């Protein structure tokens, strides 16, 4: 009899996500080139870089929207198992405990805010399709429980009063919050935020910074974010990874990154004096 070979992966203590030699090419373009970094548990990790540096590509590789990346993405999932995310289908990534937002807010316009948040709880529903079609008592109970949970999340984000609004034509700040609420429904271990502050004004950005820290403490999760708003990044991140043209420039604390010569060159150009 053949034995099923189970590959085992290792992860250092206190690390939740370990990216090893990640590369991704589109035709001749190397969008991500041999990138490695690690995210610790309960850490807010920033990924920065000039436009076109490949930040969103890294996100899409982690969440398996791009399947052809090489390298390893090792993650400690919800059940404490250590897995390689590259072997997980895109729609099963959330089951492992990773959930993301999108750069151009992807809300469902036909649904209300509350229902949008409930989409985030899709994997938490245990009823079968059959039970659902005939709407047995268990369905109502489960739906009500998750509705209550969604309301709690909305209250936490301060948008519970708007729960019955359609997610269409909402102010940008609210849309972003709804998307955040949707990620929180699945009790994730790692939240990936793609430019959470894009399109927000200064006050909203400051609020968001507080919110991100609060989320980390309340849900005991790690947060990986891509952001162009440097004030926000420097304010909330514990650790920052700067990349340019898919290559790693520097990893360090916000202070180290601010003082790094290479990062300054990548953003502002070199002076030949």
């Amino acid at each position, binding site marked *: 009899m053949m034995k099923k070979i189970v590959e085992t992966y290792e992860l250092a203590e206190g690390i939740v996500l370990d990216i090893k030699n990640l590369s991704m090419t589109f035709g001749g373009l190397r969008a991500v080139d041999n990138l490695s970094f690690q995210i610790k548990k309960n850490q807010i990790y920033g990924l920065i870089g000039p436009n076109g540096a490949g930040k969103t590509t890294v996100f899409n590789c982690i969440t398996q929207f791009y399947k052809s990346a090489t390298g390893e993405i090792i993650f400690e999932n919800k059940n404490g198992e250590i897995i390689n995310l590259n072997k997980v289908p895109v*729609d099963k990534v959330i089951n492992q405990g990773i959930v993301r937002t999108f750069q151009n807010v992807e*809300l469902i316009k036909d649904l209300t805010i509350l229902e949008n948040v409930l989409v985030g709880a899709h994997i938490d529903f245990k009823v079968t399709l059959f039970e659902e079609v005939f709407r047995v008592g268990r369905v109502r109970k489960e739906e009500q429980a998750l509705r209550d949970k969604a309301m709690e999340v909305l209250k936490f984000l301060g948008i519970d009063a708007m729960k019955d609004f359609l997610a269409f034509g909402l102010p940008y700040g609210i849309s972003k919050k709804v998307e955040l609420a949707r990620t929180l429904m699945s009790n994730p271990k790692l939240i990936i935020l793609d430019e959470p502050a894009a399109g927000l004004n200064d006050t909203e950005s400051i609020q968001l910074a507080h919110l991100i820290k609060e989320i980390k403490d309340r849900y005991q999760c790690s947060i990986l974010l891509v952001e162009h708003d440097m004030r926000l990044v420097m304010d909330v991140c514990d650790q920052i990874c700067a990349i340019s043209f898919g290559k790693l420039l520097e990893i360090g604390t916000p202070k180290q990154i601010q003082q790094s010569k290479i990062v300054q060159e990548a953003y502002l150009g070199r002076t030949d004096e």
Partner: protein
Amino acid sequence: MEQSKLVLKTKVTTLLKSPYIQYGLFAVLLSILPMLQEIGILKSSEITILGSVMVYSIAALGLNLLLGYSGLASLGTAGFMGLAAYTTAYFVQDLGLPYIVAFIVSIIIPLAIGIIVGFISLRIEGMYLAIGTLIVAEILLKSFTQFSDITGGGIGKPMGYPNIAILGQLTKNQTFTLVAIVLVIFMILTYNIVRGRTGRALMAMRGSESAAQAMGINILKYRLITFGFATIFAAAAGVMWISFLPRIYPNDWGLTVSLNILAIIVIGGLKSIWGTLLGSFIVIGVPNLILKNIPIIGNIPGIPNIFTGLMIVLVIMYYPYGLIYIGHDVKKWYRYIKNYIQKLTNKKNNIDEVGK
């Protein structure tokens, strides 16, 4: 005394707001129609037309799940309806099996074929899916003509009104009630599917595929689920068709029927159960019940198609989500007119007071 009246009133209004109660009342309303025929208010031919409206509604509810909620276009509805109708007729007429057994088998066979077709074709989307389902429908249509031993070919296949175990042989009016009950059951099922997790998953899939996937929704699985549902609905409509109408012909299952069903949900309302029924009444009922009785207009050949085409154009121009959403506007107009009248009377009162 006053208060208890008020409490009762609010209780009744909340009860009426429950869709299940609404559907139940609708069922009662529909079963009154045959009685109207018996006392001579409605003609027997009108009952036939209203029955067809209901049969079309069942299939259209299924297509609405597919197109309205999940954004998948199918032109194969009629093919699956026909398959189910012929299966029922074959099992009841030729094999002599009980109606209920035939009903169940007639749903399972199209469903099995539907799932196979779905598995192959649901990887493609938009226009191509519509073409794929059209091909399947055409294949089925061709088979209906070719296997004339079973289908009766061009002569048609009769079945007669169903003979149900406990109820015995049904009359036409009783069959009408049966169709009404099946319709209401399918309305309730649609409502259950749509309002829960599956409905949200379908709308998420339609709204943003990447968001849906990130939230753990397996696109192919949910497409297959809706396609399966649409097939079950179409099959049930087919069974009701052969139960209610005396004879079926291969030509009954052509592209026109699929397009009519598409027109029903476009005109009536995407993502709306009542809209589907309204659309069905407009596309199937209005031309046959009303237009044909109007002098001159009624004599124009092809008036139903002209009417449907005109309605599609008008609805897409003014109510792109369907005519059912006219309700909001009616309310708005009502409020506007009410306010206007109130303003006028206020003005008059003011003038009177000043005059004093």
